[in-house]
């Protein structure tokens, strides 16, 4: 592999990795607060992409209950992304209310929440199919006016990037930046971190955990919805099962970065994106296993993840 090609792959990997990162952050936030994995996250990712599509005023296809319907208005893409993210965040809140809170209030086994979030995921995916069918949807003229690719190369060595990936990378970085600001410079963010560290002490300090958990689910849903839209922008929404592979990759990122660690999720996402991009062509069939092979190796040698703190099991 020559050097130019290598750089090209690294840059590609960074762009994909940045989406892995914001997606996995959705898992991470919830894990850091509740110690559970929210399996409905990939369904929310999918929903977010569909919300954005609907908000752009685009028409649904020929199957499902909503066949041939469209909203009476259409937002431009940047607003629709934001709207899609907000709606997905709202969905996250709904999921929390319906499937997590009742269990939490009874002090149920965390495993139970895992299963109930799985039930939510199955229901959501199938509701999507029931409403809008299984066909692929793409955002109409989302990036109209931009060239399909940009040459970032210097000195006659071409380094071609798909414009979409550049846009995705920029949006992901903006979102990460905003999230960091939120976590480190606002009261809510600091409270979130306090709860993640130690829920009991936090509630003694008068931090309202229930509201913070709602906020966490909102942010997590927002991040998932945005990630869904960004992937949809890059490749179209391929159907109700659109989020499944991402759901799995996200788990690998979650562990790699250290469960519950926010910078860890970012580093983990970027790392997996880059390593996947560097898989040699003859072995590309094994690409899906790369993230998990790394995950196993990391777990065996550094069970707390790359940037995680040592994990003390809560009994």
């Amino acid at each position: 592999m020559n050097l130019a090609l290598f750089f090209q792959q690294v840059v590609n990997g960074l762009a994909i990795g940045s989406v892995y990162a914001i997606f996995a952050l959705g898992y991470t936030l919830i894990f850091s607060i509740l110690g559970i994995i929210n399996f409905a996250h990939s369904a929310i990712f999918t929903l977010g992409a569909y919300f954005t599509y609907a908000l752009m005023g685009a028409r649904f296809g020929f199957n499902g209950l909503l066949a041939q319907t469209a909203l009476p208005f259409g937002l431009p893409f940047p607003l629709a992304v934001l709207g899609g993210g907000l709606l997905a965040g709202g969905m996250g809140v709904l999921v929390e209310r319906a499937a997590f809170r009742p269990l939490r209030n009874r002090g149920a086994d965390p495993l139970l929440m895992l299963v109930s979030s799985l039930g939510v995921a199955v229901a959501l995916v199938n509701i999507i199919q029931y409403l809008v069918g299984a066909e692929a949807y793409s955002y109409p003229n989302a990036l109209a006016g931009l060239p399909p690719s940009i040459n970032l190369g210097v000195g006659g060595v071409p380094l071609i990037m798909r414009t979409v990936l550049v846009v995705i990378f920029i949006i992901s970085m903006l979102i990460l930046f905003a999230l960091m600001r939120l976590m480190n410079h606002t009261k809510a963010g600091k409270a979130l971190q306090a709860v993640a560290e130690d829920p009991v002490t936090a509630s003694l300090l008068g931090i309202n955990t229930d509201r913070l958990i709602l906020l966490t689910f909102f942010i997590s849903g927002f991040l998932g919805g945005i990630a869904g839209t960004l992937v949809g922008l890059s490749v179209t929404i391929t159907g109700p099962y659109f989020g499944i592979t991402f759901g799995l990759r996200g788990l690998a990122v979650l562990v790699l970065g250290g469960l519950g660690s926010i910078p860890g999720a970012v580093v983990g996402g970027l790392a997996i994106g880059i390593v996947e991009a560097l898989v040699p062509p003859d072995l590309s069939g094994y690409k899906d296993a790369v993230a998990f092979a790394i995950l196993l190796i990391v777990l065996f040698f550094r069970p707390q993840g790359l940037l995680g703190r040592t994990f003390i099991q809560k009994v």
Partner: protein
Amino acid sequence: MDSFFNQYGFLIVSMTFSALLALSLYLPLMAGQLSLASPAFYAIGGYIAAVLSTQIFPVESGAPFPLERLLLEMLIAAAVSGVLALLVGLPALRLRGVYLALATIALVEIVRVLSLNLEITGKAIGIFGIPQPFATKLDYLWISGVLLLVSAFFVYRLEHSRMGRAFAALREDELAAGAMGINPTTTKLLAFVLGAMLAGVVGAVSAHFLNTWNARQGTFDASILILAYVIIGGSRTFLGPIAGGLLLTALPEVLRALAGVPGLPPLAVSFLQDGRLIIYGVLIVLSTLFFPQGLITPALLRRWNRKGRA
């Protein structure tokens, strides 16, 4: 009645397979290990049977597959799965809680990707035309039913044995169990290996049962589904996973049959057909809300016992 068994023979046997897989996940869970590796060993067991029966000792097409060879395949599947589980288990069982779960998910995905890539597993198309030991699907109950009874009895005995109490002690508190003179590593490893062997055996029979085997068997989806069997059925007694496996496998087909009830309004029929899985998902959520301990709990069993005696 005959037509009922003709139609539902496959389903009945599928239900027993699910119950067995649920037990295979329940075994490590008894010792406090959340392992989702069952589908990986299930897939491997299936490939062993598929390869052996189509390539190593094929029968003439149409001739029934000798039962003793099926038993041999099951043995080989158990042995291979067991050895593999030993190798994977040693490093993996140092991990706890969700970490172990995620490591086992990784194992499942790696097995899936390998079988998509390897020549011997038939790549994407898989292996087909696997010979049949029985004339009908229902006859598989001779294997799966017996297997279920034997495994259930075994786990029941295990729950009440010294080893079973060691499992339970580990599940409650690993540090304390260590202090009580229980060797956590060997105990956990035993539970993990037993679960893997059971899953491998089920895979071997399933390959014949489904006529075909491919990389779409034994995936992450299956991991989660099997976990749902255990949690919804109840994870504190061996009857829970069995009940969960039987019920959750029957449920989509019961919904299908409901759609066929004549006289239903067309909207209800179309929802039961196309929205079957929506109902399935919602029922999973509801059951966790209403039966947080699972459908079958030790307390429930005690109540039944008392009633039975009274």
